[in-house]
C-alpha cells in the first residue's frame, strides 16, 4: 500500500517534538481565533506568514493546519454559549446549541460539538488520505447547473428553521435574499440596492449579519426583559458530561454530518455553510424527537458541527490535489505554499511528498490534540454562563463589536452591526425567526449567480438543469423533500394505523 507507506512517512515527519510543538501552538491559536467573531483562520495565517518566513516549511504548514482545524472547534464554543457565531459555518450550531445551553445542557452541547468535530475531522482526513483524487474528479463535475440545483436543495432546509409561522419564516427568508442582493452584481458589474453608499458596493458580510442578529439582537432582547433583583443564573442541569441518551442521539448525526460535509467542502463552490444547513435539515427529519428542534435538540448541534469540520477537510482536497483554493483560508494557505517556493497544483504530491504527507499526518495529530484540549475546557467554558447577566451581556456586546471591527477595520460595518442588531431585537420581539435570514443571505447570491452562469453558457436554454444528470437528480430530490412530508401527513390522516 503506497498510500499507507507515504502516510507513515508523514507521521515520522509530524511526530518529531518540534513539529508536535508547532501543532500544539497552531491548535491553541486556532481555538482562540475561532472564538472571536470575525477574526478567522484566514486572517490569522495571513498575519503569521511574515513571522514564519524563517521556519521550515513543513513545521509552518503543520502549525497552519492546526490553526485551520482549531478555528473550526473554537467557533462552536461561542455559538453555543453566547449565541455569537465566530464564523458563518457555525451559525446553525448557534441556533440549536444556544438553546441547549439555556436549558442547562451547555456542557453536553459543547461535548457533542467537540467529539463530533473530532469524529468528522478524523473520518474526513482519512477520506482525504485515500480518496482525494476520486473526490476531486466528482467535485469538478459540478458546473453552474449542478451548483444551482444544489442550492435549490439547500433552500428546502429553510423549512427546518421556519419556526411557528410559515409566513413569518418566509418573511425572514426574503429579508435575507434582499440583503444578499446588495452590492455590485458580479455578472454585470452594476450596483444594486447600494443607494450610492460606496461601503455597500462590496455587499453585506454574512458574519456581520449573523453576529448582529444573533448576538446583538438576542442580547438587546434579553436586556429588555431583565428586571433588577431578579437575576437568575442559568443552572447547569444534570451531569456536565453527555448522558447515554445523548451519546445515542449524537453518533449517527456525527456520521451523517461527515458524509454531507466532506464532499460539499471539496466542491470548488460548495462552501462550509450549505453542508451545515443540509445536515440540520436531515437531522430534524430523521430525529425521533423532532419536537425538540427549535428548543435545543442535541442532533441539531452534533450533525452541523460534524458537517462543518468535515467540509474543512474537504476544502483541502482541491487545494492539495489541484492547487485550487476554494475558501479564504485555502487561498492564504496557497499563498504560504508559494512563499516557500512550492508550486501548489497537480504536481505537489509528486514533488513534495514529505510536506504533503507531513501536513496530512499533522491533521490527524491536530484533531487528537484539539479533543484533548477542548474536552477538559468544557467545564471551564460553561462557567461563563454563571457570570451575572449585566456583565455577560455587556461582555457579549464588546466581543461582537471587536470581532466585527477586526474583520475589515470598517466603521461602516459597526454601524451596520448596530442597525442589524436592532432589527434582530425587533424580530425577536415580534417572534420572527432569524436563521432564515442567514440561509437567504448565503444561498441567494449563490443560486442567482449559478443560475445566470448556467443560462449564459447554454445561451438561454432552460433545459440545462434537466439534461445534466447530477442537476436533474438534485432537483428531483428537492421536489421529493418538499412534497413528501405533506403526502405523508395526508396519507396518515386518511389511513389511520
Amino acid at each position, binding site marked *: 500500500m503506497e498510500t499507507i507507506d507515504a502516510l507513515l512517512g508523514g507521521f515520522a515527519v509530524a511526530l518529531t517534538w518540534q513539529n508536535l510543538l508547532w501543532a500544539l501552538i497552531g491548535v491553541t491559536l486556532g481555538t482562540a481565533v475561532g472564538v472571536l467573531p470575525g477574526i478567522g483562520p484566514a486572517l490569522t495565517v495571513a498575519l503569521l506568514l511574515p513571522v514564519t518566513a524563517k521556519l521550515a516549511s513543513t513545521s509552518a504548514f503543520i502549525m497552519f493546519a492546526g490553526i485551520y482545524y482549531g478555528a473550526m472547534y473554537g467557533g462552536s464554543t461561542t455559538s453555543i454559549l453566547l449565541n455569537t457565531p465566530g464564523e458563518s459555518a457555525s451559525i446553525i450550531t448557534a441556533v440549536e446549541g444556544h438553546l441547549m445551553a439555556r436549558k442547562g445542557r451547555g456542557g453536553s452541547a459543547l461535548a457533542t460539538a467537540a467529539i463530533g468535530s473530532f469524529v468528522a475531522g478524523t473520518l474526513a482526513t482519512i477520506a482525504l488520505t485515500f480518496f482525494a483524487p476520486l473526490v476531486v474528479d466528482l467535485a469538478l463535475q459540478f458546473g453552474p447547473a449542478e451548483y444551482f440545483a444544489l442550492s435549490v436543495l439547500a433552500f428546502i432546509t429553510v423549512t427546518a428553521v421556519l419556526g411557528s409561522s410559515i409566513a413569518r419564516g418566509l418573511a425572514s427568508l426574503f429579508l435575507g435574499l434582499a440583503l444578499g442582493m446588495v452590492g455590485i452584481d458580479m455578472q454585470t458589474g452594476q450596483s444594486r440596492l447600494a443607494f450610492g453608499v460606496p461601503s455597500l458596493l462590496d455587499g453585506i*458580510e454574512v458574519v456581520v449579519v449573523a453576529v448582529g442578529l444573533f448576538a446583538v439582537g438576542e442580547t438587546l432582547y434579553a436586556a429588555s426583559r431583565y428586571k433588577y433583583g431578579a437575576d437568575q443564573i442559568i443552572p447547569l442541569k444534570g451531569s456536565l458530561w453527555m448522558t447515554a441518551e445523548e451519546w445515542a442521539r449524537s453518533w449517527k448525526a456525527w456520521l451523517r454530518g461527515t458524509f454531507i460535509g466532506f464532499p460539499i467542502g471539496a466542491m470548488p463552490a460548495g462552501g462550509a455553510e450549505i453542508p451545515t444547513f443540509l445536515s440540520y435539515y436531515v437531522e430534524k427529519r430523521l430525529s425521533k424527537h423532532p419536537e425538540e428542534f427549535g428548543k435545543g435538540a442535541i442532533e441539531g448541534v452534533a450533525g452541523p458541527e460534524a458537517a462543518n469540520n468535515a467540509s474543512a477537510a474537504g476544502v483541502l482536497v482541491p487545494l492539495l490535489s489541484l492547487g485550487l483554493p*476554494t475558501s479564504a483560508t485555502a*487561498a492564504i494557505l496557497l499563498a504560504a505554499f508559494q512563499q516557500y517556493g512550492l508550486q501548489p497544483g497537480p504536481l505537489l504530491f509528486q514533488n513534495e511528498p514529505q510536506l504533503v504527507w507531513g501536513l496530512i499526518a499533522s491533521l490527524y495529530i491536530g484533531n487528537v490534540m484539539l479533543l484533548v484540549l477542548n474536552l477538559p475546557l468544557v467545564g471551564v467554558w460553561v462557567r461563563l454562563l454563571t457570570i451575572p447577566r449585566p456583565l455577560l451581556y455587556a461582555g457579549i456586546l464588546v466581543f461582537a463589536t471587536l470581532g466585527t471591527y477586526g474583520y475589515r477595520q470598517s466603521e461602516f460595518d459597526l454601524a451596520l452591526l448596530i442597525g442589524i442588531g436592532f432589527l434582530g431585537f425587533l424580530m425577536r420581539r415580534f417572534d420572527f425567526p432569524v436563521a432564515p435570514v442567514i440561509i437567504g443571505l448565503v444561498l441567494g447570491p449563490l443560486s442567482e449567480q449559478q443560475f445566470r452562469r448556467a443560462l449564459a*453558457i447554454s445561451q438561454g436554454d432552460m433545459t440545462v438543469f434537466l439534461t445534466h444528470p447530477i442537476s436533474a437528480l438534485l432537483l428531483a430530490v428537492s421536489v421529493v423533500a418538499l412534497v413528501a412530508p405533506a403526502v405523508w401527513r395526508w396519507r396518515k390522516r386518511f389511513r389511520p394505523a
Partner: protein
Amino acid sequence: MSLVISRTARTAGRVASAACVAAALTIGSAAHAVDNLKILVPANPGGGWDQTGRAMQQVLQGAGLVKSIQVDNKGGAGGTIGLAQFVNSAKGDGNAIIVSGLVMVGAIITNKSPVNLTQVTPIARLTGEFEVIAVPANSPLKSMDDLVTAWKKDPGKMAWAGGSAGGTDHITVGLLAKAVGIDATKINYVAHSGGGEAVAQLLGGHLPVGVNGYAEFQAQIEAGKLRALGISSPKRLPGVNVPTFIEQNIKVEIANWRGVFGAPGITAAQKKDLSDTIDKMVKTPAWKEILKKNSWADFYLTSDEYAKYVTEENTRVTAILKDIGLVK
C-alpha cells in the same frame, strides 16, 4: 462570504519572504529625502495591492531609504473607497502615498466614483502582470487562430471564464474582440469570484475557454491540464513557453499594472522627494528579488511618463467598457 477569494490572495505570502532579503542589506544611507511615509492600500490584506504596499515597506525600510513606514488598509469597491479617503484626508501631505492600478481605473468608471486619479499626483508605475488565455487540455482549440475562427463562427457559444465583470480579464476579452473584429456586445463573459473557481470550471469542462492572470493558471498549465493559447505580454516571458497575442497577429497588449500616487496638492519639491525615493527603491536588489518571486514584470515608469500612461489607460479602458456595454 467565505467563498469570495481575492484572485490575487494566493500570492499574498510571497512578499513575506522578501523580508529576509531586505534584512540582509546593510542599513545605512545618511540623508533621507522622505523621513516617514504612510502607504494607503485601498484593499483588504492579501491581494495584489496589499502585497505591493507591504513589499515597498520592506524594501524602503530595509535599504534605509525611509526611516518609518506605516501601511494602512482601506478596502472596498475596487479601491475607490480608499481613494476617496486619500483625496479627502491627505491633501498636501508630502509623506503619504496610495497604491493603485488598472483595476482602480476600471472601478472609478463603473462605480461612477466621485473621486478619480486626476485628483492625485502620479509618482511611479511599478509592476505588471500579464493575462493568459487557456483552454482545457482536451479542447480542439490549439492556437489563437483556432480560437478566433470558432469565436467568429458563433460568438455566443464561446463562453469565457474569468474574474469579475469589468475587471482586467473582461477588459482583455473586450480588447481581443475588438482586435479580431468581433462585436464586443456579443461577448459571452461569465464572471467568477476567484481564480480558483474559474480554474475549476475550466478543468471540469463547463466552459470552453478561460482568461486570467498568468499566475492563476500557471500550475495547471505546467501540469498539462490547461493549454495556454496566448499571453498579453509584448514579448515572450523568460521561462514561460506561451506565444504572445502579438506574434499570433492579434495586436493586443495589456498588463494588470500597479503603481503609486502622492497626495493632491503637494509641492514640486515634495513630489520630487517621493519620486527620488521610489527611484532608489526600484534599483535595489531586494526590489528586483521581489519582482522575481512574484512573477511581476518590471513596469517602472517615472512620474511624468506615468501621468501620461494613466491618461491613456483611462481612455482605452473607458472605450472598452462602453464597447462591452458595462458603461453607458
